[in-house]
């Protein structure tokens, strides 16, 4: 159970950075509607991401050579926390900052780093994640989209599904098959990660309307799409291992804890004169505090160069359950119809999207499977 160890870590004193962030967000957030704030990092605003980039708050840990800011992982965490706590629409740079950029930094060629990272750090280049397919959700290794080698590059065919902001992004990093799976044994072999410029010809992007009436995720079809030689990221055939270690970044952050925080804060204010709400609110606050301590622990391990994939799965599942339960818990404290407009609308929005929290980034059952395996079961 070594993989479920959580050493404590404290954030560095960062009063000045937090104060700057809070001022910036107060100003930027003047006109954010309750829905925008409830959407959190699932809100997409190029303009906002450019402004965040100008402040030096994207790609913070990357070297200046690549447009980064040579800051610590903990300082980056502070930025993420403040964006989330404010309910900022950070979706246009979230994926690039969280996983595509770090992936390129670690495994990309010098050329890829120089052409892509500065744009991500400026908040100009938006990335999406191309994992899921129509027949491959949790069972990701069964994916069928394939890239075949041709002289001077690759030809891509297949289909990705549920690609968040695919219709708004510049690039996708896709996990695809580059050689057939062996008849017997690991289906994980023969997968690679490729960079896809979403303006290339042969790509059809079809937004899919979700239950709130919005179009956030997409179906993306690749029909003989030509990719250049240097579209390959990392090693050919090592895509599974690369994508898996990327998941430690994808799953471990404060975005798995704070997605519904703005609703909690508004509710505390709205219910401030209700003595009966004190106890249930106190439980929410306690869990928030404890989950944040877990998230800090993971940030510390990442900073120390460890690979806390299992801890990340554990905190993701706990955090998702917490974020997800909030709208329902609030209904036990008050009738939403009697609440201020801000709370009522955030609550309505979050009630509809909360089910996705334990799906996106890997489902609850898959997270618990990872933990069970670490416990030595199965």
């Amino acid at each position, binding site marked *: 159970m070594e993989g479920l160890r*959580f050493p404590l870590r404290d954030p560095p004193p960062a009063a000045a950075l937090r104060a700057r962030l809070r001022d910036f967000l107060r100003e930027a957030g003047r006109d954010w509607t309750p829905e925008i704030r409830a959407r959190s990092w699932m809100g997409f605003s190029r303009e906002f991401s450019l402004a965040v980039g100008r402040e030096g708050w994207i790609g913070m840990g990357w070297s200046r050579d690549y447009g980064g800011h040579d800051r610590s992982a903990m300082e980056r965490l502070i930025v993420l926390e403040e964006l989330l706590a404010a309910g900022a629409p950070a979706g246009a740079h979230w994926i690039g900052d969280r996983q595509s950029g770090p992936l390129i930094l670690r495994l990309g060629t010098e050329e890829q780093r120089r052409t892509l990272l500065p744009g991500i750090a400026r908040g100009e280049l938006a990335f999406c994640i191309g994992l899921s397919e129509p027949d491959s959700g949790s069972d990701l290794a069964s994916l069928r989209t394939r890239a075949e080698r041709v002289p001077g590059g690759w030809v891509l065919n297949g289909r990705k599904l549920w690609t968040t902001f695919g219709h708004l992004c510049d690039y996708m990093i896709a996990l695809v098959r580059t050689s057939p799976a062996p008849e017997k044994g690991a289906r994980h072999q023969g997968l690679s990660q490729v960079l896809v410029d979403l303006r290339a010809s042969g790509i059809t992007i079809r937004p899919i309307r979700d239950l709130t009436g919005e179009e956030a995720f997409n179906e993306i079809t690749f029909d003989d799409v030509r990719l250049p030689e240097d579209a390959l990221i990392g090693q050919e055939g090592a895509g599974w291992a690369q994508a898996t270690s990327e998941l430690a970044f994808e799953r471990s952050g404060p975005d798995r804890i704070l997605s519904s925080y703005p609703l909690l804060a508004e509710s505390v204010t709205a219910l401030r004169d209700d003595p009966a709400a004190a106890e249930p609110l106190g439980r929410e606050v*306690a869990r928030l505090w404890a989950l944040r301590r877990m998230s800090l622990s993971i940030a510390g391990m990442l900073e120390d160069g460890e690979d806390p994939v299992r801890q990340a799965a554990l905190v993701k599942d706990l955090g998702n359950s917490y974020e997800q339960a909030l709208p329902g818990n609030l209904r036990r404290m008050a009738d939403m119809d009697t609440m201020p407009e801000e709370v009522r609308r955030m609550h309505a929005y979050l009630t509809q999207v909360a089910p996705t929290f334990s799906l996106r980034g890997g489902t609850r059952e898959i997270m618990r499977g990872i933990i069970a395996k670490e416990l030595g079961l199965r």
Partner: protein
Amino acid sequence: MSDTMLVDQVTRALAEHCDAATMREVEARRFPRQAWDALAPMGLRLALVPEDQGGAGLGLETAAELFMALGHHGAPVPLAEDMVAAMLFAASGLEVPEDGVLTFAAAGGTVPWGAFATRVATVHGRRLHILAGGIANGRASISGEPRDVIEHATTLAEVTLPESFGDGSARSLTALIRAAQIAGALGAILALAVDYANTRVQFGRPIGRFQAIQQQLAEFAEESACASVAARSAARAADKRGLAGAAFEIGCAKIIAGEAAGKCAAIAHQVFAAIGITEDHSLHHFTRRLWSWREEGGTERFWAQRIGAEAQARGGAALWPDITARDEGIAP
């Protein structure tokens, strides 16, 4: 000796001297003499006493690891109570007794291990009373652990605790001990349950192969990890800001531990099924302690009420800034 070496040493000693039989002995209201005599010479009494008063000067964060190690074995000896009582003695300028068994309690509350203690420190706001004798068997807790009442005790001394202890130090210290012990016990139960799931065969395979069992134990592991992080973090906060200054974190840790205790005890019993509720099986010694310990040092309800009321008074806009400021050493 480094803190980790001490924790390792105590962990090994507990494994050697405490088992289900020791817990049974306690539940039969006998003092676990053998275990105590083996463990007391390790000198834990002086662990939390400052160095300039002849102690080891350890912090509560290390103590929390010791409490977890104790919890892992069902805490069948009053080492935590003894260690913390000695800390209270020293903090109020009293000499720490060398022999016997020490314990502490909030004034008016039941006294853990009281009937076996040679000295009891009771806390009245910031006043500390040292009592001897006159402690009667009280009502046993759900777990059958001694929780005794004071009847005609003699007061040997009355002193004052430092300001940093605040008015609720006995409750906070009990909360911290029990939260950490719960986290430790959860680790022990999880190991037992995983082992059982991998060996108990039904339908031709170990029940641990069934996904329903795996998912429940994974949830157990989540709650257990959360309780451990919370308890250790709260102890660290108390080292930094004093007991009164860390009431928020201690309360949060107790809420998390109490909720985890309820959820995990239920999961464990589901996994063990019938064998788990037999007197012979060791599971109940642990689960009954979970149910007892969550009642002590303030329940989830007690602390949540407090923490929630404080959040209400501060308003939603202060909630996040307050949480971050505490961790970054800025007074909210």
